[in-house]
């Protein structure tokens, strides 16, 4: 069975929403990337707006546009991924609790934590079907994608809404900068490619797509494969892993027209991509996308949106290319890893 990507929307730190393609001009952000938010008033009344935090609003608006693009009233299932969920509300509840020494607290920020987004979309669309959230660091979105494939194979469903979302707050940025996870020196998203220091450049975003078991004239791509290898520190084994997956799809590395890697500006972490790409996919085009969205647990959901748009227009802006090998984009592979953990691969194919 083929799974078609029928709609793809992203709210990101770039001018991408709704329905805009990959930007040719990059918006520059200092230190960390925050989203350009849509006008929520177009979608919700003031009472609804007051009840939802920013990430829940963005998640819902992104889902609304994805479903609209797909021409679907209601999905059969909602499967989402997030690394940390609604960080702002978690921080708010934590501060209130600690400041008041467990005083009288309002429940709103407690409720609006992780799984509130998928639940809120289910409420908005009266979607009583399968609904889960994966929260497994940088494999959260791929886990959701993999589960959607399992769900297609296992149930009589035709359309699944799949999304990934994470947010960055100043407080979270400072905490992680303090332990070296993010860069300690002033930087911008343009530094990701040529970084010679450790620590990534963080960002945030919300991406939703509609997967369908039947083709449609406007499909972006076919979701050919999703694989996760949780722990593997041997580059040789990673190469074998790629070759085996591709072989199972009747492909060899040279068939891959573009590999999108998860370069995030952390010099140590990025070395691995360079070595694997140059060895395993030396004849393929190489590209990246985190200079547009920053690093976050579900950044690959933006990566998939990027790949979908690249395939549809058969074009990738030069700012996202890492080599000169431009070929017609029939097979695009998205590869992400986090210091040799959570190796994730998404393989897309141009629909015929």
């Amino acid at each position, binding site marked *: 069975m083929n799974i078609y990507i029928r709609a793809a929307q992203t709210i990101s730190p770039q001018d991408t929403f709704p329905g805009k393609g990959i930007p040719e001009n990059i918006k520059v952000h200092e230190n960390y990337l925050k989203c350009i938010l849509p006008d929520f008033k177009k979608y919700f009344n003031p009472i609804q707006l007051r009840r939802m935090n920013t990430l829940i609003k963005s998640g819902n608006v992104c889902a609304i546009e994805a479903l609209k693009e797909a021409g679907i009233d209601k999905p059969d299932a909602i499967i989402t991924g997030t690394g*940390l969920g609604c960080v702002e509300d978690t921080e708010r509840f934590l501060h209130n*609790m600690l400041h008041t020494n467990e005083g009288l607290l309002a429940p709103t920020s407690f409720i609006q934590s992780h*799984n509130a987004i998928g639940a809120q979309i289910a409420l908005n669309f009266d979607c*009583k079907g399968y609904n*889960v959230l994966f*929260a497994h*660091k940088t494999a959260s979105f791929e886990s959701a994608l993999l589960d959607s494939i399992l*769900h297609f*194979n296992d149930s009589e469903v035709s359309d699944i809404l799949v999304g990934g979302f994470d947010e960055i707050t100043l407080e979270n940025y400072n905490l992680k900068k303090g332990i070296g996870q993010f860069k300690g020196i002033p930087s911008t998203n343009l530094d990701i490619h040529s970084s010679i220091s450790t620590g990534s450049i963080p960002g945030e975003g919300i991406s939703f797509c509609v997967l369908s078991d039947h083709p449609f004239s406007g499909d972006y791509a076919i979701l050919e494969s999703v694989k996760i290898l949780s722990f593997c520190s041997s580059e040789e084994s990673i190469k074998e892993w790629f070759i085996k997956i591709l072989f199972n799809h009747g492909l060899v590395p040279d068939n891959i027209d573009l590999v999108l890697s998860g370069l995030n500006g952390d010099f140590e972490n990025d070395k691995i991509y360079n070595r694997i790409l140059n060895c395993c996919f030396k004849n393929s085009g190489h590209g990246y996308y985190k200079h547009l969205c920053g690093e976050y647990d579900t950044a690959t959901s933006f990566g998939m949106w990027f790949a979908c748009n690249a395939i549809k227009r058969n074009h990738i802006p030069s700012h996202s290319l890492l080599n000169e090998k431009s070929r017609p984009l029939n097979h695009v592979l998205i590869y992400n890893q986090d210091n040799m953990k959570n190796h994730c691969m998404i393989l897309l194919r141009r629909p015929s």
Partner: protein
Amino acid sequence: MAGKVYITGIGVISAIGKNAAENLESLKKQKTGIGKIEILETKYRNDFVAGEIKLTNTQLAEFLGINPVLNLPRTTLLAITAAKEAILNAGFDPQDNLRNGFVAGTTVGGMDKTEKYYYHTDQNSAFIKSHSFGNITEQAAEHIGITQYVTTLNTACSSGANAILHGTRLIQQGLLDRVVAGGFDALSKFTLNGFKSLFILSPDLCTPFDKNRKGLNLGEGAGFVVLESEELLMKTGKVPLCRLSGYANTNDAFHQTTSSPNGEGAYLTMEKAIIRAGIKVSDIDYINLHGTGTDNNDLSEGMALIRLFGNNIPPFSSTKSYIGHTLGAAGGIEAVFSVLSITEKLIFPNLFFREPIEELGFSPVKDLISDARVQNVLSNSFGFGGNNTSLIFSTN
């Protein structure tokens, strides 16, 4: 449908015991583990009771042979305890040449350390990395040696059950041979205060499905089952404990924290799970309820029971009266209890029940039923956000 999935091992730690044998003994003796809070540092120690495991983090670490200086989150220690027992019980080496996975559900992750050190990063900053849900699963997976496929789900209080559902499908569809699946959660001030702010915590021992119920008691623990494919069992000749025969996940789509009064989501998920198992409604021998003891849950779940079973509701009980509501761990721990119900031919009673809820007019099991004919157990897990999941465990 794809191949059958069997359960070959169980592991559990809860307020009524640090392994399956101790848990079974307490269930048989009808001994609750809910009581005064002694380990969690909260100012509400005298206001609420909880299903707390009376072992400090140092004791848990020493029990596992882990250096207490590592200061691992309590959730990690609980997860490792139950997962190791499940693997030992199933009798396999996680690093054999098979495709092994580890799938867990949780709702608090490393919050116990975050809330302790949030304003004291100079003392300890490890919480910044260990805070996330996935990190706890990863720590546990590294410790038990499962490397190929590790992931985490969060669907509030049905997280553990959905982890088992995801693991089952991974095996059915031939992606993995074996999955250790379940859930874990430790008590934290964050969740205690969160549930307090919702006014659904009972100051006294919880009384699920009782007319005068006052709310839920929080609990903590971890529960895992080992799922294996039929093909693998045919090769190894291992005799499984029982079979995971049915599952369903639906959304109530009613309210973020309240279940619909007619139990729509609960009804749909139970019905779908029974259809998936290929059995009749009348084949269910025991229902391990979600049964939190809140006004809303028990009435809604009860209405769903009436809608599905009519006048022939099978014996049912909530084991949350022994261990409290263990949130993300609940689906995992209650899966272990469901397996024990089948293997031990026991139906566990609901503790502290006095009078039926007026709108329902029926009662849970009040005394232990031994030598019971238990062929199919239905286990319910419902969560905030309307996330409802039912699992069915059947004899081989």
